[in-house]
């Protein structure tokens, strides 16, 4: 007999988690929604530029098919293609749904949704709400979930930290243990299905564009409990971050989509006021190197170009690792209406007005393309993603699901700008429907599971907490985190070398040992911020090893994973049809034979076990190398 009133838990209240919660509740199920803080403060709020969907309202003959191609190629073919296809096909419907939810999309003079240009594409396909699109989308979901709270289907557990899942003898997920961040008590929550929607892991790199909560700790915890992790080495470095002491604040790709230009002075080491540098003394290197896409090349391409100009050629502003992002040639009123959110951020934190003075930026750790491995079901007759299916977005642990940035489905080796709000929303919706289908098929409820699986897991968690609280004169978790971040930025960054990756793996082993000796100045049993932080640091180190090991073993250049030692360069000035280019294509396809595979990491006591999985390329055969020249 089916389970009458299934218990369902969603961990994380960003765009993915809230969409999942909505869809599960709409199917009539009750949801327990866990979050570290009020869900409205989730990191989705930081997404600025927009969300991609082919609406084709700009007279450019844009097509869903082109969105599919751009996403697959933008990701260097590393994503399984049927889910990507389904996402792009469903995107316009998702946008219409958001529209009905009251999102304040920017409007054309006739009152319909406006679109703008983003990176890695040639058509205007990005829907936006000023330069705070993520905030607006997040709030619209927050509001819908509030409605379900009001009608009794959703119960929020805000200021709770997910610590672990509870598994039964068959390895199925039957609940979670969570820490009340006020009382500091660990508690058991039984569940028939659990969704992990806990976002990205930028904090592993110390400074990033991410919020303070994007540690990847929850993903690391389920990984350590047996969930597979995929494509960890694929980290996106956003080309235009504002270098800062505490974080690198993001300056949206929309700045370039709306006409912003990247440049450095042609004279090496020049520190002249940028406004006094004449046009012919400025080097617009992206426009020179990539005339077809110019400033809106995909992010991995732009970040590497900036890295090349600054690190390899020493041509950064004043000899430093900095370049200009220039909006000053655009009308101020246009900028204020389209980019207000980021102009304010820059003005507030840098103290100068970007409408009048070029911004100073440098690439920053931004997004994890990889994440928790999740399954998907293919409809064998159509070749499409089958929907709904309980397999979609289910992790390798039965009953445990994942969506949003913390799963690794849609972006392959590099994510296109404005595809993250899309994948977060879309995967949240899909996982919501998968969970609803999954619990329908259950015959035994979590209440019938043996009590000791819960009490044992709770005891295990309590003993970890006790250990940290009882240590003294040990490692400071904040300093340990800083050391981890500095090392990751230095050795596992935009450009990677095997020698440095080996050193990084050594360092991680050392940090792991030291993280067992963390001790805290704060021993209070009320709202203790140090204890959860200490645990996050321990778990970040574990995930750092997954990232680094994946990077060490993958000897090639693909999207976010770039090793110059293994680069197959595109012949300069040669294009498809030229013998030199065809020779390049042959080598590129040969490399695909070896490396066009999903990296899969499985936890083991002495470090991650890495294997590779075949990719479904049934939608677009990998024959066209990425070429943005």
């Amino acid at each position, binding site marked *: 007999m089916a389970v009458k009133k299934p218990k369902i838990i969603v961990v994380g209240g960003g765009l993915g988690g809230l969409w999942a919660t909505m869809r599960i509740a*709409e199917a009539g199920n009750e949801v327990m929604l866990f979050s570290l803080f009020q869900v409205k403060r989730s*990191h989705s709020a930081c997404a600025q530029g927009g969300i991609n969907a082919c609406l084709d309202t700009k007279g450019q003959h844009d097509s869903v098919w082109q969105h599919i191609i751009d996403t697959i190629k933008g990701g260097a073919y590393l994503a399984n293609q049927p889910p990507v296809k389904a996402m792009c096909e469903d995107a316009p419907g998702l946008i219409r*749904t958001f529209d009905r939810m*009251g999102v304040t999309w920017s409007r054309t003079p006739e009152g319909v949704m406006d679109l703008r240009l983003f990176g890695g594409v040639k058509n205007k396909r990005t829907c936006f709400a*000023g330069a705070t699109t993520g*905030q607006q989308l997040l709030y*619209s979901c927050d509001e819908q979930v509030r*409605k379900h709270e009001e009608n009794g289907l959703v119960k929020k557990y805000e200021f709770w930290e997910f610590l672990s899942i509870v598994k039964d003898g068959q390895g199925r997920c039957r609940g979670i243990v969570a820490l009340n961040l006020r009382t500091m008590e660990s508690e058991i929550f039984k569940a028939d299905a659990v969704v992990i929607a806990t976002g990205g892991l930028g904090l592993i790199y110390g400074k990033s564009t991410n919020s303070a909560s994007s540690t990847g700790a929850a993903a690391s915890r389920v990984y350590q409990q047996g969930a597979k992790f995929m494509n960890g080495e694929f980290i996106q470095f956003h080309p235009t971050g504002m270098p800062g002491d505490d974080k690198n604040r993001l300056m949206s790709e929309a700045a370039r989509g709306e006409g912003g230009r990247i440049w450095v002075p042609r004279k090496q080491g020049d520190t002249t006021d940028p406004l006094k540098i004449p046009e012919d003394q400025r080097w617009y290197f992206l426009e020179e190197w990539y005339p077809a896409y110019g400033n809106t090349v995909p992010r991995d391409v732009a970040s590497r170009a900036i890295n090349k100009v600054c690190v390899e050629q020493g041509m950064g502003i004043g000899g430093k690792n900095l370049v200009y992002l220039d909006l000053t040639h655009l009308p101020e009123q246009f900028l204020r209406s389209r980019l207000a959110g980021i102009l304010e951020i820059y003005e507030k934190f840098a103290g100068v007005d970007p409408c009048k003075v070029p911004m100073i930026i440098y690439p920053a750790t931004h997004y994890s393309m990889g994440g928790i491995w999740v399954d998907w079901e293919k409809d064998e007759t159509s070749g499409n993603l089958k929907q709904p299916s309980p397999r979609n977005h289910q992790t390798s642990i039965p009953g445990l699901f994942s969506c949003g940035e913390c799963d690794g489905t849609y972006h392959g080796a590099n994510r296109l700008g404005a595809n993250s709000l899309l994948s977060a929303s879309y995967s949240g919706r899909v996982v*919501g429907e998968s969970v609803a289908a999954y619990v329908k098929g259950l015959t035994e409820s979590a209440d019938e599971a043996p009590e000791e699986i819960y009490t044992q897991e709770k005891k295990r968690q309590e003993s970890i907490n006790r250990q940290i609280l009882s240590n003294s004169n040990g490692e400071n978790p904040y300093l340990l985190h800083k050391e981890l971040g500095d090392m990751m930025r230095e050795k596992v960054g935009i450009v990677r070398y095997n020698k440095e990756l080996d050193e990084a793996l050594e360092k991680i082993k050392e940090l792991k040992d030291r993280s067992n000796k963390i001790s805290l100045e*704060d021993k209070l049993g009320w709202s203790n911020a140090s204890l959860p932080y200490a645990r996050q640091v321990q778990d970040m180190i574990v995930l750092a090893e997954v990232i680094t090991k994946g990077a060490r073993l993958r000897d090639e250049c693909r999207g976010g994973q770039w090793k110059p030692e293994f680069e197959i360069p595109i012949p300069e000035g040669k294009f498809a049809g030229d013998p030199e280019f065809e020779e390049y294509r042959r080598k590129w396809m040969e490399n695909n034979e070896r490396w066009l595979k999903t990296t899969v990491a499985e936890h083991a006591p002495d470090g991650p076990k890495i294997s590779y999985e075949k990719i479904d390329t049934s939608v677009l055969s990998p024959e066209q190398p990425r070429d943005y020249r």
Partner: protein
Amino acid sequence: MPEVIRFKVKRQQNPDSKPYWEEFQVPYRPQHNVISVLMALRENPVNIKGERVAPVVYEVGCMEEVCGACTMIINGKVRQACSALIDQLEQPLVLEPMTKFPVVRDLMVDRQKMFDDLRKVRAWIDIDGGYDIHVHAPRISPKDWVMNYDFSRCMTCGCCMEVCPQFHPKSQFVGPAPIGQAWLFSNHPTGKFYKEERLHALMGPGGITDCGNAQNCIEACPKDIKLTDAIAKIGRETTIQVFKDLFLK
């Protein structure tokens, strides 16, 4: 250039304990803001007397003033700590928790009431479900968009509530932020189908008539949201609603 950043914090171990002041200093670095100073303190949590103490507890999120988490009172003014740049502040900095919400610990307060009140004023659009119905919402004029977008950037940070003389632990007043949201959803072409319900929610005790028209809210809002406009509009509409309820029932 100063060598250190000095600051004092009004601390409190839990909701029931007595507050106390503690003074600290961290090495100066350019570009520091209040959050990065508190982060620096965690690395070496020693007070001015040289005693090792528990790091200051505070809320933090995006660190770019879009999430609203790190709101506190800095040198007497309520604002987000992440965008409070040290170079623009007088030292020693004086950091206090917001006063209108219960203190949880140190600079962390419990702002749940605002979120509860968003439920009360039906701050959402009623949709049939989160699936495609193959049509968009009705068009919205660029002028309406400007107004709506303004209000849709409300982070529920609580700055407007902190400065409102009518909002305090002993009053029932919902305060400016939820009123702003009630107006936002009633200005949406389909959201206005439930305008009456929102107005009714704001007509009883704790509703719109509790506003004392001090106009502090609009001054304090970090996003310059025109809260007083919403309050005035909702005020007018509730008056009309009173008559409608009297004569049209």
